[in-house]
Each structure stands twice: as C-alpha cells, then as structure tokens.
C-alpha cells in the first residue's frame, strides 16, 4: 500500500483546495493519520473507497475523541554555538561540543472534538488508513460530516459518537441516541462530564463515594 504521504499527494491532486494534514504518531505503533477538513471529508472518503489502488471498502472503527483545552509544556532543544576558544586549540583536549540548551515553552492548544476512522481494504487486504476529522472548537453544537453514506459501518458507530460525545453528524440518516436513553441530556464521554450525584446507597468504604451516599441517604436503608 502507498504511504500516507503519497495518498495525500494524490488526494491533493484530485481535491486541490482540500485541507489535508498528515498527523504523525510519536508512539512505537507508528500509525500516522490523515486529518481531513470537514467540507471535503465525504468526497475524500468516497475517493478512498472507490480508488482502484486503495479500495478502502471497509471502515472498521469510528471513534470520537475529546481533546479539551490544554497547556502543553514543550521542551525545545536549541543548539548554542560554542564560545570561541580562548586559547589555541589543544590537540589533546576533547573537541568542544556545541552546547544544547533546553527551553520550556508553554503553548495553549484550544480544545476540539475529533472523529477517527480506521479504514481497511477487504478487497486488497491492506490497511489501515486512519482518517480524522476535527471540529474547530468544543462549543455546542459540534458538527462534522457523516461518512455513513460512504460506509454503512459508520451508522451505529457515528450514532454512538453522537450519543456519547455530542458530535452531530450532518448527513447521517438516523441520528438518534443509541446507548443512553432518549431523554438523557448530557454527553458522558466528554472529558468535562460531571457524573450525576444520585448514587444508590452502598456499603462502600471509600470516603468520596460514601460522602455522596450519605448526602442522599443519611442512614443506610436497613441498618442493623
């Protein structure tokens, strides 16, 4: 299979105004992914599915990821040129290595929602190509294009992402809650989700939960 860079090149040739970024994966798994801008996501997905060299006909996994606002402290290594030697070079002295200074830079990354699609090809038996789409920020209602018209496999998984992350998929034929009940209001997989404080009394020895339980049930239901 082509590398992700090559795929990106071909996609850019086809969709010149599409926003496409390859996102590196720093971990040992080394599976980079392709960030696709929302306006072209559906047509790019259709291209990936139908392109004879790729034929990514199988969308295995659809995931939402909630990236909250974060401060990233990045360590930037900077090479400081060594000071000019005061004395004439001593051949026996070790060569002066350039000094490396580590600087800590704080960077604020605004939060966003992300949907990750893992694509494989059943016809050509290769993969994965990882697609990502991102919202601009974490404000409600977050909205992203649905890929269900391209891969039916997204139908339930996008519904799940909608249910748990609150990302609305435009173009989804049947966007309803799937795991939570219909009357449920919040989106539980968001990082800032606050659990409801309505525990049943339980004999937990743990301080925090016990406090909560006490607030609701001053005495255990059947204290013996």
């Amino acid at each position: 299979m082509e590398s992700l860079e090559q795929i990106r090149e071909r996609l850019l040739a086809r969709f010149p105004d599409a926003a496409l970024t390859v996102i590196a994966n720093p971990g040992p798994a080394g599976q980079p992914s392709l960030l696709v801008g929302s306006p072209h996501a559906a047509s790019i997905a259709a291209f990936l599915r139908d392109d004879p060299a790729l034929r990514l006909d199988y969308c295995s996994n659809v995931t939402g990821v909630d990236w909250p606002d974060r401060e990233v402290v990045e360590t930037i290594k900077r090479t400081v040129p060594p000071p000019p030697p005061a004395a004439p070079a001593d051949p026996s002295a070790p060569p002066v290595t350039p000094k490396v200074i580590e600087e800590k830079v704080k960077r604020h990354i605004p939060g966003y929602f992300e949907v990750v699609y893992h694509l494989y090809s059943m016809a050509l038996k290769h993969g994965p190509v990882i697609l990502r789409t991102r919202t601009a920020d974490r404000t409600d209602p977050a909205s992203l294009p649905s890929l269900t018209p391209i891969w039916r496999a997204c139908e339930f998984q996008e519904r799940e992402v909608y249910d748990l992350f609150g990302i609305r998929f435009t173009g989804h034929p049947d966007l309803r809650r799937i795991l939570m009940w219909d009357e449920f209001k919040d989106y539980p997989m968001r990082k800032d989700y606050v659990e409801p404080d309505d525990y049943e009394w339980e004999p937990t020895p743990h301080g925090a939960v016990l406090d909560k339980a006490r607030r609701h049930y001053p005495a255990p239901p059947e204290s013996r």
Partner: protein
Amino acid sequence: MTSPAAPSSFPSGLPSSPGAHVRAVHDDFHGDLLEVSMGPHHPSTHGVFRMIVTLDGERIVRLKPVFGYLHRNHEKLGEQTTYLASMPYTDRLDYLNSMTNNWAYAIAVEKLAGQAVPERAEYVRVILAELTRLLNHTCLAGFLLQDTGCSGTPLMYAFREREKILDLFESLSGSRMMCNFQRFGGCRLDPTPEWLAAVRQLVDGYGRFLDEFEALISGNEIVMARTQGTGVLTPALAISAGVTGPMLRATGVDYDLRKVDGYGVYPRFEFRVPLGAHGDTYDRYMIRILEMRESIQILRQALRDLPAGPILDPKAKNRGFRPKPGEAYGRIEGPKGEIGFYLISDGSPNPFRYRVRPPSFVNLTILEDMCLGQTVADAVIILGSIDIVLGEVDR
C-alpha cells in the same frame, strides 16, 4: 419510542439488502400494521435487547433495534483506570470470549508501548484463542437452534462440551469466564504439562461431538427449511456495513484477520478459511461448524509445536505502566468478528482515550436489512445467527 420515526430509507448509492424494497413502501399502503416491542425481556433476544418490530401479518416491514440497557460506559471506565486495571474489565465485554478480549487488548497495548511477546506466550495465546472460538461457536450453535424451538436439546449438548472448555480455563486462569489471563508482554501463568494434556484430550474428542451435533442438526429438514434462504446478506452490504467474522465469511468474502494480519504466530499454522455462498442463516451456522473443525487443526499444531521458554517478557511491566504518548489500534479475529482496541496515550498511567471496536455491535447494523420481508420467527433466528452478546453491544 418517544423519538420521531426514523427516516425510512438510506441515501441512494448505498448498497442495500434484498429486502430494501419493503422499506420503501409507505405504511398506509399496508393498512393496519401491528407494532410489537420484542424485548427487552424476551426469551430469545440474548439478553436485554429490544426490537421494535412492525408487522404486516407475520411479515416484518420495519425493525428498529434498541439497546443500551446494559450500558455502563465501559470506555469511560477504561479512561479512569490504569492500563492493567482495564484488563479484567475487558473480560466483561463479551463474557463468552474473555480470552480473546484479553488478547485484543493486550495486542493494542503492546503496539502502543512497543512491547515484545515471548514465543511460548504467543503459542499459548493461540491455544486459548482457538479454545475460545470452539467455546463461542459451540454456544452459538446451541443458542441458534434453541431459537428455532429445539426444546433445549442442542443447547444442552453444546453446553456439555462448553463446560469442558470452561473447566480448562478455570484450571488455568482460576476463573471460568472472567479469565483475566493475558498481560502486556505475555500471559499471567505458564500452563502445566497436565493442563496441556487435558487440552489435547479435549481436542481429540471434539471432532466426535461435532459429528454427533451435525447428525442431529445439519441434515435436519426442519432446520434447513427454517434457515436456508432466510436472512440473506449480500457481500456488498456486508463489506460496506463493516460486518466481520463468520457472518462476513458466510457471504463469501474471504477476510480472516488470522490470515490477513497474520498476528501472533498464526502464519505458522496450516488452516483453511471456509466460505459460504448464500449468506443466509444456514451458511452462518455451517461456517461456524466448519471453523470449529479448522480450530481443532490449529490446536493440534499449536500443541505439537509449543516451544519452551518464558511466558512473560522479562521487560514487561504491569504496575506503574506508562506508555509513551502516541496511539495504536490493535485488532484480532475474535470468534464474533474483528475485536479491536484503539488507545491514545498521553504518557499518564491511564489511557487518554480507550475505545473498543465491538464486533457484535457493528454486526448488528444490518439486522433490519436482513429481517425485512421475513417473519417474526425468522427475526429471532437471524438475531441468533448474528451472534451478539449484549455485554459487548452495550458496553
């Protein structure tokens, strides 16, 4: 249902099932339709699962699956516990196949952390995974035939054999169903020679059980009448809907991750991948029976070639495990289909994002397509042949 009725058709250009024309017919045409809510407390929905079935006589004109009754936000739990502590939770996804769930999770974490696995552990994992496949397919065949109204006989035969496998799991891992056996970089315990001998004995006897089971069922005219030609799934729809596992192969698509990904030591074994031609319920049943026969072959080879050596990588770390930032998607061919775990690490002891790709959940997508135009009785069998476990669907 309080929510408004779902749009009755999918966008054009989407591969659709043979029953799709029924979907297009407006309900007014049928006159009075009967809406039956099958479940969540129903004898054959395999757990707390509900199907809102609209019937024209006994024919299904609409079917909406409703689930989530068992939802406990498994993925949130995974984000709030350490990598190791998620392992016992994966047992509880698909509680029939804890060994393969463990393995899929271990593979994802090993990818994430770049952890090597000793050879002996890989072989033991294959043995356990194939035993799990036998276990799952045996159970499924029993449940499926129970759904056709067999008064429990095939189910009891299936459970009789399943108990033998569970006994093996119990004597190895300490628990019958919640094995919690795999670790990042190997397995928790080394199987003893006595245990391996017991596996050998089970493997030798399993073919006989399958023969008897097939004599009871596979040639039975009633079973054939009930299952052949019902719940047909086309290969195009199956691929598009991300259907995996025996269900996909029953439609004739050759896609087995053991061959495609060749994870673990599977490339070293000789086995065949049975393929169906019709994609109906009978094919889905028979493919599983044939897969069991292949599993027996794999088990024989794995038991023969099992090397000596450590069972857990010496560098493996379970407590205080903090993989480097990054992400990984690990998947294996579970008995129900592709079970995958998608992990994003931010360098902390807990995964930043922990996602399960559950095969039964995705396979349920095409339940309605397969059921349209069939009768209520078929819907029950079709659901049975999808092979869902609600612990995994609802997570």
